[in-house]
């Protein structure tokens, strides 16, 4: 695996920070070095929110991803526009296609358009699990952590009273994973 | 032979550096006697200010800390939170408490810190040489208000007891003076009561002592005490401003 640099970006409230946290947690459970680095400040209150997650077999240098990203998840258009250029060669752009689209083709990257909002709304009655659907696509698309580790991470992140959220999260994750598997 | 008078053991033998006629000596003794009578000298910790009483730690014969200017109530908060079973006092002048340390005294009072503050109000900065204090009376001369305090230019004095009694945190607030023997007796009663209330853990207690500064007022000690009675006390009326123990008794 070596080092995987992932950027999750969207509006505040879309769950970009928590999808990154689940990924980082899974990496930690597998014994990798991980870091989770959020944007912080006024934008937390409804503006853009993003976090950078690094999963690596070596001690992590910069926790901020400004180049050579392996994966960018863009949950809305401003995030796509802001972060598409940090993708490195053969990087994967995962787009919440209900709210964003890549305007100009880019060389050397792979793009997955996933209607995550619509999929979440259809299955769960709202867009709240779009982030986990996209996370499923991430795990299918790049070499980071196993599906089992993500399941493990769910049980750590959703503790106690929050455990009731685990089944839907697992389901959403699987939807995204399978969508990416069948993507052409 | 019967002992008819003995100096309190809660004061050291260090010679006081205060000017002739200064009331700090009287108030030090009242605080010391009150603690001794309550058998709390062994448990007492005093936070002393910046100002004339900056060396009060040398005179009080119990644990003491010299604080930054105005911060004694904060420092005392730190001490009391570590040792809730000890008697923690602050001893502060008017510049320290009512000017640079206004935030600290208000918030210690509002939090209901279980400490006792002794506030010496003589309406002047003594240690630095007679500058205008937050409690300098209108018309009263100071080296930074040479023609006398003009509220239009210099603003108005602060009545601290009145201000603090608007808060819910304090449980006992009294203003006393030491310009007559009867006032001295009452002052000691107030200090002792405040300490007793602290010992019961009821809340924040505060005793203001309207005092004098013959040196910086440019008056003899006797004239200075007259000034206290004739000018200071009418502006800063003596009496109990808050006492939840009295309310409980009703």
């Amino acid at each position: 695996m070596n080092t995987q640099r992932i950027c999750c970006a969207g509006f505040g409230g879309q769950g970009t920070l928590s999808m990154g946290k689940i990924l980082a947690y899974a990496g930690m459970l597998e014994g990798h070095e991980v870091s989770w680095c959020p944007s912080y400040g006024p934008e937390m209150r409804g503006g853009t929110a993003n976090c950078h997650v690094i999963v690596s077999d070596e001690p992590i240098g910069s926790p901020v991803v400004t180049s050579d990203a392996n994966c960018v998840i863009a949950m809305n258009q401003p995030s796509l526009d802001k972060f598409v250029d940090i993708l490195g060669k053969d990087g994967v752009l995962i787009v919440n296609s209900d709210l964003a689209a890549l305007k100009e083709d880019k060389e050397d990257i792979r793009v997955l358009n996933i209607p995550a909002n619509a999929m979440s709304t259809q299955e769960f009655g709202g867009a709240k699990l779009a982030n986990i659907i996209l996370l499923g696509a991430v795990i299918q698309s790049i070499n980071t952590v196993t599906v089992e580790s993500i399941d493990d991470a769910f049980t750590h992140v959703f503790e106690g009273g929050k455990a009731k959220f685990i089944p839907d999260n697992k389901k959403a994750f699987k939807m995204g994973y399978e969508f990416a598997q069948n993507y052409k | 032979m019967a002992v008819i008078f003995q100096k309190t053991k809660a004061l050291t033998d260090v010679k006081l550096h205060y000017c002739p006629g200064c009331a700090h000596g009287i108030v030090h003794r009242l605080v010391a006697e009150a603690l001794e009578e309550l058998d709390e000298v062994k448990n007492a910790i005093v936070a002393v200010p910046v100002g004339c009483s900056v060396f009060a730690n040398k005179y009080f014969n119990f644990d003491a800390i010299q604080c930054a200017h105005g911060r004694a109530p904060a420092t005392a908060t730190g001490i009391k939170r570590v040792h809730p079973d000890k008697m923690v006092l602050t001893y502060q002048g008017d510049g320290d408490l009512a000017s640079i340390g206004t935030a600290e005294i208000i918030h210690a009072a509002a939090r209901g810190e279980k400490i006792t503050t002794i506030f010496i109000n003589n309406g002047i900065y003594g240690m630095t040489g007679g500058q205008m204090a937050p409690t300098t009376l209108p018309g009263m001369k100071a080296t930074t208000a040479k023609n006398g305090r003009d509220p239009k230019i210099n603003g108005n004095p602060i009545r601290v007891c009145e201000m603090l009694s608007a808060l819910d945190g304090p449980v006992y607030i009294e203003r006393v003076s030491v310009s007559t023997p009867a006032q001295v007796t009452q002052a000691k009663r107030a200090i002792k009561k405040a300490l007793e209330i602290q010992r019961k853990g009821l809340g924040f207690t505060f005793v203001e002592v309207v005092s004098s500064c013959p040196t910086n007022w440019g008056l003899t000690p006797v004239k200075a005490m007259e000034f206290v009675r004739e000018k200071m006390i009418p502006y800063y009326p003596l009496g109990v401003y808050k006492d939840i123990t009295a309310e409980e008794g009703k």
Partner: protein
Amino acid sequence: MAKVLMKGNEAVGKAAIEAGCRFFFGYPITPQSEVPEYLSSELPKVGGVFVQAESEVAAINMVYGAAGAGARVLTSSSSPGIALKQEGIGYISNAGLPAVIINMMRGGPGLGTIQPGQADYNMAVKGGSNGDYHNIVLAPASVQEAVDMVMEAFDLADYYGTPVIVLADGLIGQMMEPVEFNYVCKKELAPKTWALTGKGDGEKHMVENLVIEPDECEAWNKKHFETYAKIEANEQAWEEFLMDDAEYAFVSYGTSSRIVRSAIGYLREAGYKVGMIRPKTLWPFPTKAFEKLDKKIKKYMDVEMSMGQMVQDVAYACNDKNKIEFYGRTGGVVPAVDEIVEFGKKVMGGDK
């Protein structure tokens, strides 16, 4: 203890509790507010005390009182708040009391920004209060190191009787990394027989700050400097990264050293013999790290999130100001890896 994924601000709060700290006095400020938030709920669970002070000034003076009363005590803030605390830090230092102060730095000066910065180096290392004094200053580069350094800070503070500043930044406060908490006191600590506890049947204790006689005050200062000499001899700490064959050395601490570490990866791939000296103590500055390298290194490349506040210390340590090149971003800007790679290539002679 298994590793947990924790935000830096919460992790340092837990570290303090693990190290036996039971008293926190503080004031909210971004980007460190999770420290007081965490401790407000966690300290009472272990019989501790959390007080949200009316101001930074009051908070540090509460720390002064609690330290004088013999407690392990913590406050935390971020740059403008730490500026306000300087008065109290000077008093604590002068009184020879132990206290731990965490600074999650942001961009400055003044209100500045809320994004990560390193421009409080001078305030922490050169002294932001009046008078001759030093703080011990520890500079973590990861959440785990922040945890370890907060724990160590309490021991150093108690051992030497001095304030210890843990100088991190908003990024370390806000980011999550896996951490574990293994507190082991490595110092032999004397009981605090000097503390204000009420004199009981013994002699009274005093915590003093005013020395009216200049000779006496000078002697007091000199006594502090005897302690500082011991600290300089014993407590310098640094990390050497890929220095064995290095011809060039980056010098960087905290978050900026993380960026440099990544940049070195690219530069090594490109064939440059470059490493890094990463100071872990900023005071005492790790001059020992430079002594053995002096002749070998062609250039020292100082990278900071400031306009170069550490440069003079590096120059002093390597004893040749002509060997120093500086690159910095400030005001809350975290440099990108690419910028550091470019800077390195420029200094080391262009593309290989």
